[in-house]
């Protein structure tokens, strides 16, 4: 990929490395240069109320002087005097930093996967382009009030190290996330893709409106354990907690994870794969340390098979980084990226039809972990929840609070069905998930709207 933006970013990265070498031939350095654009059109009460755009530009430098490590970053023009100041700051900070005995060093030359999740029309999308699709959503909502956002973003990154790594990557992402509202309910629809042309505002608006009407006038259900069908948004949430608290190299090394590699801890229908090359994926082909994203199974047929590493945790474990470093200080020490929960063979409608008595959930909301080791999480349902009996949706329910171990929810025998659908949930440029619907044997609802 030699687009002009990538070449420009590579040139800046080269300039920064040259400035580093001029000050010290022995310094280790990694440089990350980013440019791009973010456009986001928000609507509420059925009209566009905020419409924002931002030009992106940053240069990040991480420097190590005999194991003394410091980072400096600038947002703004990459003029020579600013780059000189950036390098000077990093040297100044590194010289007085304590030696980091676990510093893994910077990465050497390694080619990034040959993926280019890029769409030129999305990169150059205008506010009018976004507004037209919002208009489709709002119109499709009919007499219901609508709210949401449509975003387009593009990012180009050049990464280089003093050890010889030099890679560029880029991605575009377009997504719409909107609700339609009745006086007693909300219905949601989401779409995401590498290309804005794939976003169908009308289809999304119609789906949100249909779900809102189906969720109207909800009633109570007694809290307790119920079988559930979780729509993909809930599954993405489940996967995020599972990976963040379970599969990072650091949490495993520190024995804070429930994961035991090689043991059948999850249902045999669950396979979780890191795969930046998936045709529906978005994102960059390397991580914040320039390490190529490895394609690997994190869980295969219910058995944890790998943990995800940045260079630090990989070095401590004596293995290679899996390409999961995240930019800047991060308490988890890694980011789960390009994750696919492999789909099954059941249509989402079949998952409901196979439910004797249970609950169908659109979204989870405000989920927080109570204990990271047992992965007990509390949260609420949102944007539509329904009681299912004899394979049919019989009535909408008021939102419910749950307190549930996510690991137990996916334990052997607990997954009754995996949907054949696959929905994309991007998280910035560094992470995205492709997930299906799931039918689970038991979910612990601990309270209703009454508390």
């Amino acid at each position, binding site marked *: 990929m030699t687009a002009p933006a990538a070449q420009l970013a590579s040139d800046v990265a080269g300039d920064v490395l040259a400035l580093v070498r001029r000050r010290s031939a022995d310094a280790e350095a990694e440089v990350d240069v980013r440019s791009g654009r973010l456009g*986001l*059109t928000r609507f*509420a*009460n*059925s*009209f*566009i*109320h*905020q*419409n*924002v*755009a*931002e*030009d*992106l*530009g*940053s240069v990040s430098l991480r420097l190590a002087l005999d194991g003394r490590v410091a980072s*400096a970053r*600038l*947002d*703004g*023009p990459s003029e020579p005097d600013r780059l000189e100041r950036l390098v000077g700051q990093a040297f100044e*900070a590194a010289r*007085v*930093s*304590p030696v980091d*005995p*676990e510093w893994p060093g910077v990465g050497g030359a390694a080619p990034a996967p040959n993926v280019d999740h890029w769409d030129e029309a999305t990169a150059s999308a*205008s*506010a*009018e382009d976004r*507004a*037209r699709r*919002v208009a489709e959503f709002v119109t499709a909502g009919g007499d219901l009030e609508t709210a*949401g*956002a449509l*975003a387009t973003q593009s990012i180009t990154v050049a990464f280089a190290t003093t050890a010889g790594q030099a890679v560029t990557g880029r991605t575009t992402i377009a997504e719409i*996330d*909107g*609700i339609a509202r009745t006086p007693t309910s*909300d219905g949601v629809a989401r779409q995401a893709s590498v290309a804005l042309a794939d976003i169908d505002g009308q289809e999304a608006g119609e789906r949100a409106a249909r779900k809102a009407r189906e969720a109207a006038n909800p009633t109570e259900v007694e809290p307790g354990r119920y079988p559930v069908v979780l729509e993909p948004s809930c599954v993405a949430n489940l996967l995020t907690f599972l990976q963040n608290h379970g599969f990072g190299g650091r949490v495993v090394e*520190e024995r804070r994870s429930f994961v035991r590699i090689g043991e059948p801890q999850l249902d045999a229908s669950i396979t979780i794969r890191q795969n930046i090359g998936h045709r529906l994926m978005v994102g960059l082909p390397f991580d914040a340390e320039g390490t190529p994203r490895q394609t690997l199974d994190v869980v295969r047929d219910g058995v944890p098979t790998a943990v995800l590493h940045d260079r630090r945790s990989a070095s401590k474990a004596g293995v290679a980084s899996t390409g999961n470093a995240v930019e*800047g*200080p991060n*308490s988890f020490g890694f980011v789960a990226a390009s994750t696919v929960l492999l789909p099954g063979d059941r249509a989402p409608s079949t998952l409901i039809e196979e439910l004797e008595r249970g609950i169908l959930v659109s979204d989870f*909301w*405000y989920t*927080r972990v109570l204990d990271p*080791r*047992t992965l007990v*999480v*509390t949260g609420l349902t*949102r944007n539509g929840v329904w009681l299912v009996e004899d394979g049919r949706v019989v009535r909408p329910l008021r939102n419910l*609070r749950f*307190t549930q171990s996510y690991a137990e929810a996916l334990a052997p025998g607990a997954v009754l069905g995996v949907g054949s659908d696959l929905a994309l949930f991007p998280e910035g440029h560094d992470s995205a998930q492709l997930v299906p619907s799931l039918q689970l044997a038991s979910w*612990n609802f*601990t*309270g209703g709207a*009454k*508390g």
Partner: protein
Amino acid sequence: MDDLATAAVEAALAGGARYADARAIESRAEVIEARNGIVEAVDRTDRIGIGVRALIGSSWGFHAVPDASPAAARAAGAAAAAVARASAVVPGRPIELAPVEPVVATWSSPCQEDPWSVPLGEKAALLEGVTATMQQHGADVANASSHAWETRKWYVSSEGHRIEQHIRECGAAMSATALGEGETQRRSHPGIRGQYGTRGWELVRSLDLPGNAARIAAEARALLAAPACPSLEATDLILGSEQMALQIHESVGHAVELDRILGWEAAFAGTSWLDLAQMGSLRFGSELMQITADATLEGALGSFGFDDEGTPAHPVDIVRDGIWVGVLSGRDSAALAGIQSGGAVRADGYNRIPMVRMTNVGLLPGSDSLEAMIAATDDGILMDTNRSWSIDDRRLNFQFGCEIGWEVKAGKRGRMLRNPTYTGISPRFWGSMDMLGNRDEWTFWGTPNCGKGQPLQVGHTGHPAVPARFRGIRVGVRG
């Protein structure tokens, strides 16, 4: 820099905006993180750029550039107007702005010891030392961090505002985690998020991290062997002031944001259970409940001289004698509600559009004390230091967990309890508050990580809080 902001505003007006404002911002941030006796991150960020807001018809257009040149400023102004114009494809009722007197002013936050003058080595040694101490006293994982921010911003509006502000903020945090057979326990000091303010490094020194490192490590280890918080449908609950800050933030602060009440955040952050028609008459809590939003509190994290629309900082009554009386608002939302702007609009950088954010939303102190509450409680539970927080999208139904609890029996603090949680419905919960700590216990807690908006903005908010007692609360919800 105010010339750049002026150029941006002029370009937006030339592009058709009937109102425009711009913020030219130069900022820097520093994060130092230590873990288990090792400094893992020394990270500094310099940012410079201009964000321009243009109002056309029913919509704001906003454009930001990471550039401080006159050409970039003019281009950003023109682009902001173009973005606003595009919104006419899906129009609404024209936005009006509540009147605010144009101001030409400067303001600086108080700072005794400039965080940037404290040697990096000294800061690193502090964090390295306390994490080592925690490990020596039983922590399996010991974390500590410090943050410092310095922001210079120049605000210009088409109505004549020209305001320069210089705000310095800093703070620190540490935590000790102990690993048991089946679970983990954690203790933090001084709170889960640490403590932050619009103050200098004197704030960090006042936290006495070294003096508390061994204590929290030992408490984390002791929690592993402590009995679990019992599951009770109703008991007396005493909350320490740090947990009260979280309780206020989540169940009061967000609920009284006028943009949420008006539905502007409906699809993402959510709405509010409050109905504007009931402002002035709705009972939010007991008569002890006095909540203000006051951006003038010296040193609190939500303090400033002027908000990002040029409205001077001023106190706003939110709940008076338990009755809901006010909201957090900006000029556009206030105009819709028919009230004066609350001066609560801020952005987390030059590249984000200003929106309604909490200032210092907190409880005014009462006349009791934590010890008096314990002495007056026959059978209850004391909880402190937030561990988990979850609340519905209308800010009504919540479940919060704390790091540590204690039995309270016959007026005395008893056994330590692990995994304490409580749940409730906001007005019912606040209505049960019958004792409130006094002015000596009044702490201005700082929350440096309040997320809201799209693209996400991370806000700095303050929460004055005291310990309080609540009656008949459900505790010990299990997974």
